[in-house]
């Protein structure tokens, strides 16, 4: 049995952000009607899917009631007005505990909103609930949640609660975080859209870091247009985040609807396609052919050092997580899952010399991607080499190799974090009822172009 949003469903909970926002603006749907529909959906399906770490239906309905009263007198403040948005349990929300998916962290409520939570409130969005993360975001499976396409399978991670929530109709959009693919992997495995913007585009103050230099906040939604609307409201300089870019505001929706004719998409010759499940590779290639039919030039490219990226990323995450989650490992170690605990403990023993070597190697990877992207506008590859693994599965086959689930799922996504690039996952097919995703990686600050190509594909 699946718990997806049916394509013919006319209930408000099945609306995209774009649709719901338009109806609210036209006075044909109230925020309360939308919230009541989503609350009913959550309460009917959440026992099976288990997306939420924090859920308070009364608070959601009260906020929606207030928004509805406001809408009687004032024009909606933004496209997010009255839209319920869930947050990964790494992002602070005033008055609600941030536990990072771990029983080792206290139930103490956050004293203030994260930068993005405050932005959402200013936009008139309704904070719907906190959704599960893989413990400390240190993994790609999110064991506490199920994949709405098949409950026996993982939703991916670490933003697995976000992927499951959006796919199941628990609000049209969710905010996740992405260290090595943690927005794009669950988007791919749950059949929704997920976007990691250029590093520094979304302020991160008030989120709990796994890896300070790699972590990026990004939305998961049911359409590319929804992602663009979300970004328009939450992106911008965050003076409390030293990695936040102080650049002119990007126009994320500026290229949506524009034909991709004349753009060039690069297809890596190897690595990103090596050992992919044949059905995943076939769907990915079919999608790139479709981009060609839409007028894009498709050409092969080489990306040097692609096979080195996971090692470099692991080195950086290990070193930085050894510091970022040190207190939790010290205070509540017995409450942490064994894999996550030993990973964090090993990070605490990390060599500073090795960490610095990884940061230098990272610069080599950035240069390799700068050169690879020079003759093209973006690069396409499968988001993950396989579809959703079964829950509890720790090792899978990729081609003729057996390897860990984590190594397989992160194989194609880590590069965008290491190089700081915008990367989008869009659904492009199914195998045995489980979704397949295509990843589009663009040049820094050309987020709008990546979204435009994704929009052109998904609406064609």
């Amino acid at each position, binding site marked *: 049995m699946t718990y997806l949003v049916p394509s013919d469903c006319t209930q408000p909970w099945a609306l995209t952000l774009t649709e719901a926002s338009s109806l609210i603006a036209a006075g044909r749907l109230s925020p309360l009607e939308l919230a009541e529909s989503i609350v009913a959906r959550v309460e009917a399906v959440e026992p099976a899917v288990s997306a939420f770490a924090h859920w308070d239906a009364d608070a959601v309905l009260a906020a929606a009631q207030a928004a509805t009263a406001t809408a009687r007198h004032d024009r909606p403040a933004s496209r997010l007005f009255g839209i319920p948005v869930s947050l990964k349990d790494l992002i602070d929300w005033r008055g609600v505990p941030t536990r990072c998916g771990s029983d080792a962290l206290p139930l103490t409520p956050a004293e203030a909103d994260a930068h993005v939570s405050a932005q959402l409130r200013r936009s008139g969005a309704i904070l719907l609930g906190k959704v599960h993360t893989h413990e400390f975001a240190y993994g790609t499976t999110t064991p506490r949640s199920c994949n709405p396409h098949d409950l026996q399978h993982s939703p991916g991670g670490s933003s697995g609660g976000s992927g499951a929530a959006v796919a199941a109709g628990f609000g049209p959009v969710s905010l996740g975080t992405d260290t090595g693919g943690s927005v794009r992997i669950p988007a791919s495995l749950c059949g929704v859209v997920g976007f990691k913007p*250029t*590093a*520094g585009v979304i302020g991160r103050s008030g989120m709990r870091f796994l890896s*300070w*230099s790699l972590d990026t906040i990004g939305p998961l939604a049911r359409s590319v247009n929804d992602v663009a609307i979300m970004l328009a409201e939450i992106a911008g300089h965050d003076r409390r985040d030293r*990695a936040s*870019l102080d*650049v002119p505001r990007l126009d994320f929706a500026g290229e949506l609807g524009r034909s991709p004719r004349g753009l060039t998409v690069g297809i890596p010759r190897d690595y990103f396609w090596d050992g992919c499940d044949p059905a995943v590779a076939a769907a990915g290639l079919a999608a790139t052919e479709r981009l060609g039919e839409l007028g894009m030039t498709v050409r092969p490219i080489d990306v040097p*050092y692609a*096979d*080195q990226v*996971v*090692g*470099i990323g*692991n*080195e950086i995450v*290990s070193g930085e997580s050894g510091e970022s989650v*040190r207190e939790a490992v*010290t205070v509540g170690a017995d409450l942490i899952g*064994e*894999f996550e605990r*030993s*990973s964090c*403990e*090993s990070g*605490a*023993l990390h*060599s500073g010399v*090795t960490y*610095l*070597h*990884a*940061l*230098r*190697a*990272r*610069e*080599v990877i*950035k240069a390799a991607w*700068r050169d690879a992207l020079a003759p093209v506008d973006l690069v396409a590859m499968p988001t993950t080499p396989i579809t959703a693994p079964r829950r509890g599965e720790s090792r899978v086959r990729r081609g003729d190799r057996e390897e*860990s689930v984590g190594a397989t799922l992160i194989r194609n996504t880590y590069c965008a974090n290491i190089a*700081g690039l915008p990367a989008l996952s869009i659904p492009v097919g199914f195998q045995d009822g489980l979704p397949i995703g295509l990843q589009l990686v663009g*040049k*820094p*600050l*050309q987020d709008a172009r990546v979204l435009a190509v994704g929009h052109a594909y998904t609406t064609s």
Partner: protein
Amino acid sequence: MPDPVDPVHFTADDVAALQKMSGVPLAADRYELIAAALSASRSAAIVRTIEVTGVEPALGFDPRWT
């Protein structure tokens, strides 16, 4: 390009030595598990296969790369 698969194998004794140097509080009965986690990453060996002479380490993303 050098062979990236050059695993570093850590033992419980290695972890004990690292623990002593770092001062990080870790229970001795976890050294084997932590050694396995360190070995599983193999990343130290992988990273060293990239020649970084003359490359400055940097944090985050440089917006001038556009």
